Each structure stands twice: as structure tokens, then as C-alpha cells.
């Protein structure tokens, strides 16, 4: 138990440092990116008005003080007011969070539910036509740029075949293409890794023993093989969930999906610092929490991992 706690403590410390670094980098980059005040006021606004708005936003203070105020506010869940939307940044981001979570979870489960069976099947029927075809598709899926995949889906399945809408959020049909696009890389990675993990276990001595004992083939696969192949599959699946968050920026832009990735990009163009900071902070914290959870699960499942 102590080993587990120590392991978790070290991971937790790293996660917290990562959160702090991310916050700091975001603050520095956004402050370097120019003065938002001219964007807020008409071009002929008097200097006194400019000074007033700067003071109101706290932009007239020294950078270290701005940073201290910023960090203190984050601890209290206050990310400032959105310059563009004129309401608390946290509320703005929260409004967009649902769409991103919906898209992310759909892509993730779609990817996992499709990829794991394909990977297992490919391994069992190694070198069959299905195996070769599935792995070829997976290779292309891994190499294809997300944004181009989205464009291809729109062209073929939306404009030519007229099966799905080209963008926006609405009923289930709106979700299909973005989820496929966002999930493609994940699906391909999980399928390939599942295949190799299962193949590795199939070569193990205890599988030969089980077969020699006359255990039915489907029991060999489900009970002896899958149980042992599960660990690397769980790891890659969890890690892939994190990368989905990054891919969401591009996918949401291509499909005009109203999530925090698209919000962040638009806010950068609007120089809406508080919203960008909040959106990036949210994404990073989600990512870090997920990775921490995977590490923790892994530590419990595999005692060897605790030593690393």
C-alpha cells in the first residue's frame, strides 16, 4: 500500500507542476500577443478612454502583479471577464464544454468499440485478407491529416452521397462525421496495438498449454488471451483519449462544431485573453487528470509499474 501511495504521490506532484507550467506559459504567451484595448474601442477613442479601459482590465499594472492576480484568481475559479462576450470567461467556456465532451466521448467510444474487435480478429486470423485490409486502412488512418480526413468525409459522405450534414451541432447525424474524423487516428492506433498485443500473448507458452489441455478455442481467446493482452490496450486507449482533446481543435474548426477548441481559436483571433486562458487551462487540466487516472489504474493493475 505504501508503495502505491508513494507512486501516486510522485505522479500527483508531476501533474500539479504540469498544471502550473501550462498556466504560466499561457499567461506569458497571451500577454505578449499585443494589446486588446484598441480592438474593444472605436479607432477614434480618446486617450483617456483607452487608459480607463486598460485600468478596468488591470492591464496598466506591472506584469508580475498581473501574474500574481491571475494565479490567485484561477485558484478561486475566476478566469476574468471575456472581452468579447462581456461575461465571466469561465461561464463562456463552460457553455462550450458540453459540445466538446459530447464529441470527444462519442469519438472515443466509437473508436474503442470498433478498433478492439478488429484488432483481436486481425490477430486471430493473422495474414488473412481481412487482417491485411484492416491493417492497411489503419495505417492510412494513422497517417492521414485530421483536417483533410474531415474534408474528404464532407466531400464524399455529405456533398456527394448526401448522407450527413456538412457541419454544425444538432441531432445524431451531425455527430457522425466529426466523431469519425476525430476518432480515426485513435481507432487506427488502438486497432494496431490490440493486434500486436494479442499476437504476443498468443505466442506465450501458457496458451500452448491451454490448447494442449483441450480447452475450447473461444475460451483460449476470451479467457487466456484477452485478459493478458488487456493491459497495454487499456494504456494506449487511455493515452489516446488525451490526444483526442488536441485533435478537437482542428475537427471542431472543420465541422463548425461549437466546442472549446473552436472557441479557443476564435478567441485568439479576437484577442479575448481570458477565454483563451480558460479554454487552454481546461483542456490541459482534463488531459492531465486523464493521464493521472491512467497512471493510477496502471499502478494498481501492474505492480511492476510502481517501481518506475
Amino acid at each position: 500500500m505504501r508503495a502505491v501511495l508513494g507512486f501516486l504521490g510522485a505522479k500527483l506532484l508531476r501533474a500539479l507542476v504540469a498544471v502550473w507550467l501550462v498556466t504560466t506559459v499561457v499567461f506569458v504567451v497571451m500577454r505578449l500577443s499585443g494589446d486588446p484595448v484598441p480592438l474593444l474601442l472605436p479607432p477614434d477613442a480618446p486617450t483617456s478612454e483607452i487608459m480607463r479601459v486598460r485600468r478596468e482590465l488591470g492591464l496598466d499594472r506591472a506584469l508580475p502583479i498581473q501574474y500574481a492576480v491571475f494565479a490567485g484568481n484561477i485558484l478561486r475559479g475566476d478566469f476574468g471577464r471575456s472581452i468579447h462576450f462581456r461575461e465571466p470567461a469561465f461561464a463562456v467556456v463552460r457553455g462550450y464544454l458540453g459540445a466538446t465532451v459530447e464529441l470527444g466521448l462519442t469519438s472515443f467510444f466509437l473508436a474503442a468499440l470498433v478498433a478492439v474487435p478488429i484488432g483481436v480478429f486481425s490477430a486471430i486470423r493473422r495474414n488473412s485478407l481481412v487482417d491485411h485490409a484492416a491493417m492497411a486502412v489503419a495505417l492510412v488512418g494513422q497517417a492521414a491529416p485530421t483536417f483533410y480526413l474531415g474534408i474528404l468525409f464532407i466531400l464524399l459522405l455529405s456533398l456527394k452521397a448526401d448522407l450527413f450534414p456538412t457541419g454544425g451541432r444538432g441531432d445524431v447525424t451531425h455527430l457522425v462525421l466529426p466523431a469519425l474524423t476525430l476518432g480515426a487516428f485513435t481507432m487506427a492506433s488502438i486497432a494496431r496495438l490490440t493486434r500486436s498485443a494479442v499476437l504476443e500473448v498468443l505466442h506465450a507458452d501458457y496458451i500452448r498449454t491451454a490448447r494442449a489441455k483441450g480447452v475450447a478455442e473461444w475460451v483460449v481467446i476470451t479467457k487466456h488471451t484477452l485478459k493478458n493482452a488487456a493491459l497495454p490496450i487499456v494504456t494506449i486507449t487511455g493515452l489516446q483519449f488525451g490526444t483526442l482533446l488536441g485533435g478537437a481543435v482542428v475537427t471542431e474548426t472543420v465541422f463548425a462544431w461549437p466546442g472549446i477548441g473552436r472557441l479557443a481559436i476564435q478567441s485568439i483571433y479576437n484577442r479575448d485573453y481570458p477565454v483563451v486562458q480558460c479554454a487552454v487551462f481546461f483542456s490541459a487540466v482534463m488531459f492531465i487528470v486523464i493521464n493521472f487516472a491512467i497512471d493510477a489504474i496502471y499502478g494498481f493493475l501492474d505492480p511492476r509499474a510502481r517501481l518506475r
Partner: protein
Amino acid sequence: MASSIPAPAFADAGSVDALARGGARARRTVRLVMAGLAFVALLGIVAAAAPWLAPHDPTRQALRGRLAPPTRGALDGRARLLGTDQLGRDVLSRVIYGARVSLVVGLAAVVVGGVVGATLGITAGFRGGVTDSVIMTLADAQLAFPFILLAIGIIAVLGPSFPTLIVVIGLSGWVSYARILRSQVLVLRSREFVDAIHALGGSVGRVVLRHILPNVLSTLVVIATLELARAIVLEATLSFLGLGIQPPTPSWGGMIQEGREYLDTAWWISTFPGLVLMLTSLVVSRTGDWLRDLLDPTLRGE
């Protein structure tokens, strides 16, 4: 024929037959790597020889010949094999010129990322202690971050340009080099030959440059190849978002973005640069995989 190859002395088990099979597989991998490198070389030649290869000026507009579908004979009797875009520019010529942006930014970014990542990774592995902790925590923090957001932020500050793109894309990849090289150096550092060189009075710089670096070189080559594919795709993605190479310079990502509005009526504008981009990404990353199988099979799964 293959069985006439003498079994290497270090082979511990297995029949000559198995060794021959292994040899055949290795030779096949060598051929695949060669094919992949040939593809990259071809792309390089196309990029370098673009002014002679491109049938048309890639930036010359011809408003009367806008959105023309792929054809072998156009108004002026010259072929537009991949059609024209919304300004009447020849898509094939733009795809050919676009290879320049992809390769220059991709290769330069790999150099930037490789130098930074290798230096930090080798330092972390060799020095250990606080240095190691600081560098690895930085790496963790960067991985804990949807990097594309940061890239967009930085480019929005500095303005899109070749140097900015190269540095941002390069720095987005340093962690891969650093992590893998660090773990290799950790192992190498404890080997006897390092102690022996120290005992003989060899300096740290000498140990690293003459003895550690050559030992990790093959790993470095493998990571660099895989990173090249990633860098090319990232450049295209940023150009697609309007943050990469600016028009009228042709880049694959920018072309895909420009053609997006015309998908319904002129599918060829986005489709062709996209297919070339996808093929490039696929071939380069596969070449990286094959190189890894050949040079350093222990890296599998990292």
C-alpha cells in the same frame, strides 16, 4: 542460396533455416527503406526543379479559366491535368510548388527539434539529478498540453513566417527525442567503457561527443524520420488554419483551405493537394517504422 550464408557466431539458437528467413526479412526491410528514401528524394527533386517541372506559373491568375475541371486541353490548348482553382491558377503547378514549403519547413523543423531534443535528452540522461528532473518535468508539461493551441497563440503573436513556423513546429517535437535518448543514455552511462574513459582522463564533452552520440545515432535517425512526417502534417494543418504559409505562396494545407468553399462545385482544388499530403505522410512515417525495425527493434511500441 540463402542457406549458404554462414550463421553468425553470436546467434544463440535457431536453425540455419530460421536465420535465413530472418535474413530475407531484413533484406526486404532494406528494400522498403530504400523505396521510402527514394520517394523522399523524388519529392526533393520535384521541389527543387519546380520551375522546370510545373507546366504553369503557380501564382498566375486566369479569371476566364476559373474552376476548370481537370482536362488535357484548355483554352490556350495547354493541359490543366488537375484543373484550376477559384482564381484560375493551375492546381498541378501549385501542388508541385507546394512540395517546397512542406519539405523546407519539415526538414528544418526536424533539425531544430532534433538538436534541442537530443541536447536536452542526453544532458538529462548523463547528468541525472535535478537537471534530469527539471528537463523531464518540462517534457511532461509540454505533453500535457494540446500543443496546437500554443502554436496558434505563438504564431498569432509573432505573425506567420517561415522562421516562426520552423521554430514552433520544431519545438513541438523535442520531447520525443529527449525522452528516448535520455533512457538510452541512462543505460550507456553505466557501462564500463564510460568509466574507463573517465579513468583515462577523458572529459565529459569527449565522452558525450565521441562515445555516447555515436551509440544513439541510429535511434536519432529513426525518431527524425518519424518526426519529419509529423512536421509536414503540422505545417499543413497550421496553413489550413490560416496560420502557416500565407497566400499567394502555394502550400498544400493552404490549398486545401482555399478549396474548401468550392468542394461542392470544384472538388479537385482540395482533393489533389490533400492526396499528395496524405501519401507523403504515409510513406515517410512507414519509412520511419521500417528504419526502426532495421536499426533498432527495441524501440518498438514507444
